[in-house]
């Protein structure tokens, strides 16, 4: 049982990381960002290309992928989000769907549909806790998730810029009056969520070993489940939600492996239950 839970926590950390990016955008703009998965997998392909074809060091290649993701996020904000700033949220949600489809199309065209192997920068077999062995990729995921969560919590609580992003979600005019440029806030939001998506994508590809276009779609849906469980606007909540999702998935698929789709169904039931009885999520604030 313990090993199943530990494996679940390790997997859940990644969902939490992915959910963090979704929550960043939702917190600031009230948009569900369906493009994040494809931005992440596009970045993963770029990193793979830099590492394997260009023979760059692993970290440099990964950084290149993250940079490209950041650029994609900025471009999307500039070309699509900003012109639609007054449009209904649903229009913007559909725009993110469009962006995701576009990137998926590009991935298929450039790299094809077949799986690619993500080279690992690690040697050794990782850390052994009792009967469970956590491979290096999992440990990396845990570490990155912890750092990202701490950094974003600090950012939103302690920096003027972070507070301004939260304020802009409530009252655009008020923020404008403080002299902070709204377009900087918006650009930063999309940049950071793309970067988070890219890091999550690369780490997930690393722990899975292989990846293909749209490989993050399933993770994105679990990420949304994690975000909802966490209350959609809470950064620590996204992490806790991710871990809950990860552990649930591990337990369900360990003990009831024969029932196809049970994980998704349990997730759906959990989402409905949380939204109905605790709409602010497990960790969301009550006021």
């Amino acid at each position: 049982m313990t090993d199943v839970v530990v494996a679940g926590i390790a997997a859940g950390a990644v969902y939490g990381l992915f959910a963090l990016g979704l929550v960043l955008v939702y917190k600031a703009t009230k948009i569900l960002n369906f493009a994040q998965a494809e931005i992440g997998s596009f970045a993963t392909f770029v990193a793979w290309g830099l590492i394997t074809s260009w023979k760059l060091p692993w970290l440099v290649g990964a950084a290149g992928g993250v940079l490209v993701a950041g650029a994609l996020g900025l471009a999307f904000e500039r070309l699509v989000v900003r012109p639609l700033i007054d449009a209904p949220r649903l229009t913007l949600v559909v725009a993110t769907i469009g962006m995701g489809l576009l990137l998926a199309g590009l991935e298929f065209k450039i790299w094809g549909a077949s799986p690619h192997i993500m080279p690992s920068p690690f040697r050794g077999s990782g850390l052994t806790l009792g009967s469970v062995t956590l491979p290096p990729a999992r440990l990396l995921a845990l570490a990155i998730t912890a750092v990202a969560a701490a950094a974003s919590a600090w950012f939103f609580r302690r920096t003027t810029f972070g507070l301004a992003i939260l304020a802009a979600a409530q009252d655009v005019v008020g923020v404008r009056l403080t002299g902070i440029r709204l377009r900087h806030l918006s650009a930063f939001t999309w940049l950071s969520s793309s970067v988070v998506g890219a890091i999550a994508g690369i780490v997930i590809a690393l722990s899975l070993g292989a990846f293909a276009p749209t490989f993050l779609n399933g993770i994105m849906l679990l990420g949304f489940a994690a975000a909802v469980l966490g209350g959609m606007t809470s950064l620590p909540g996204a992490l806790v939600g991710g871990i809950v999702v990860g552990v649930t998935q591990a337990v369900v698929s360990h003990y009831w492996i024969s029932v196809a789709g049970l994980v998704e169904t349990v997730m759906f039931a959990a989402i409905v239950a949380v939204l109905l009885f605790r709409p602010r999520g497990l960790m969301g604030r009550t006021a």
Partner: protein
Amino acid sequence: MSAKTRVPVWLLATVVCAALPPILGRAGVWGFDQYHALILCFGVTYALAALPLNLLIGYAGQISLGHAAFLGIGAYSSGIIAGRLGLPFTLGLVVAAAVGALAALVIGLPALRLRGLYLALVTLGFGLAMASMVFRLRSVTGGYAGQAVPRPQAGTFVFLRNADLLAVIVVIFGLVWALDRNLLRTKVGRGFLALREDEEVAAAFGVDVPLYKLYAFALYGALSAIAGSVFGHVVGFAQQESFTFDLSLLFVVIVLIGGLRSRPGVATAAFFFGVTPRFFTFLKGWELIIAPAIVMFTLVRHPGGLGQTFGELRGLRTRKVATHEDDDEAETSSASLVLPRPAGEGVERRGTTPLEVRDVTVRFGGLVTVDSASLTVEAGQITGLIGPNGAGKSTLFNAISGFVRPTKGRVLLHGTDVTDAPPHRRAALGIGRTFQNIGLVKDLTVTENLLLAQHRLAGYGPLTALVHLPAVGKGERALRDRADETLHALHFERFATSELRELSHGQQRIVELAAALLTAPGVLLLDEPSAGMSPAAAEALAERLLQVRDELGQTILLIEHHLPLVLATCSTVHVMDAGRMLTSGAPADVTADPSVVAAYLGERVA
């Protein structure tokens, strides 16, 4: 009237479009063969599948990201009924509709508590659970192998030719189109549109918000499942991989590109998406890049979608509308609000106190916004409710009209305790109200708003509205007549087909007052009716209100900051401050009261 003899355009179009393919197919005209017919089948099926989603999102303002699941429910239902059990395909359609409606009701229940994107996540989860679990259950759906859906059969005739199948699909599409169109022309459609804009406004006009939400979901589920059945019959197979999240997303994209609310726009966009993939295979994967790019370009450059384009082509949206701010006062002073009352309304209520508020307390968390407030509104009088900003006046209004549940105290309407009644019930019992920020639907026309206002007077049920029986026609004509009379009384005939948003603020306010009066409420609550008006317009408004009181005997409770209006109209004034009732009495006495002056201007330093 010629309407009785004229065949509706939709019926004519359906018959022609259904008759053409079998004839063309058999005659071999223009090389019209099996393949072309099959492609058209896909196109019409997509259009059929997009209409219900447009109904849900575009009309009722509820979101579904689980559309594919409902299509799947339909396909599997038909597969089991017509395929496994060998029963008629029409029975398959009926069962599909029933199962779809039931599933949608289950999904709709969270919608009673959730709004917007939260609801979207629930539907997303539902779609996922259906695709990954239910559709894979071997006993129910045949598991990974899938379930065969045979071609429809009428007696001994099997619709094996694609052109014949196309005819069947076109007929079904025509019927759904007509149903959708009927719906939008009745109180149900207006109720949906009001829901989308503002649930409180809808409830204030007597729309049963929870019921209408569930109704929208049930219709959506039933019609989507029918489209899914048709899809199954076209493909010949229902399998789990067909009904994935991607398909759900595709249909949301289609509805937006087609233009929310626009039936022709959405149907055209869906037809296009259904047909084109089979024509553009020569693009060798580039279409996966070009299509989303076009989608995003359309959203950014043309947010109204195809529907807007169609509207512009027909010159509907470009029509110049006069909203002369300067004419405001001239107009608002010549118009009359003494509107004809509906037959049999308002008589039985005489002799009771219209409205009594007893010791009402409203608490939000630790904040007490209304603190044991009591007031009585006398019949045929205008009663004022004044007080500084934040005194709790609007919250008290909300407690009276049912949008806020009092922590303590009772609200009595004509002697009946309505404290526990939801807003639409109170509207039916005779509370009419206006809102500070105009309680109307901004993207409906002025006439449509006046029809919406008469929601509870329509005289037919929500289910009847679907089929547009003569009773519905008669009810609608009566409502329309009164809307026309109202426009005439207001001298607003030229705005009849203008969207409300095109009117100036003052004009919107007059329409709102007229709409509230149209329901012949026992008590009319007015929340700052003169907000945003010039002093002269406010003076005209005062005269108009007195006229309404004297000629119609209308009882009014008025929140107002503009004191001259209060002094001119009210017989009694209640003053609130910091949630409490400070004092009440004749307007002149109250305004001279030192404690009232202190509440507004602050204590004089002794």
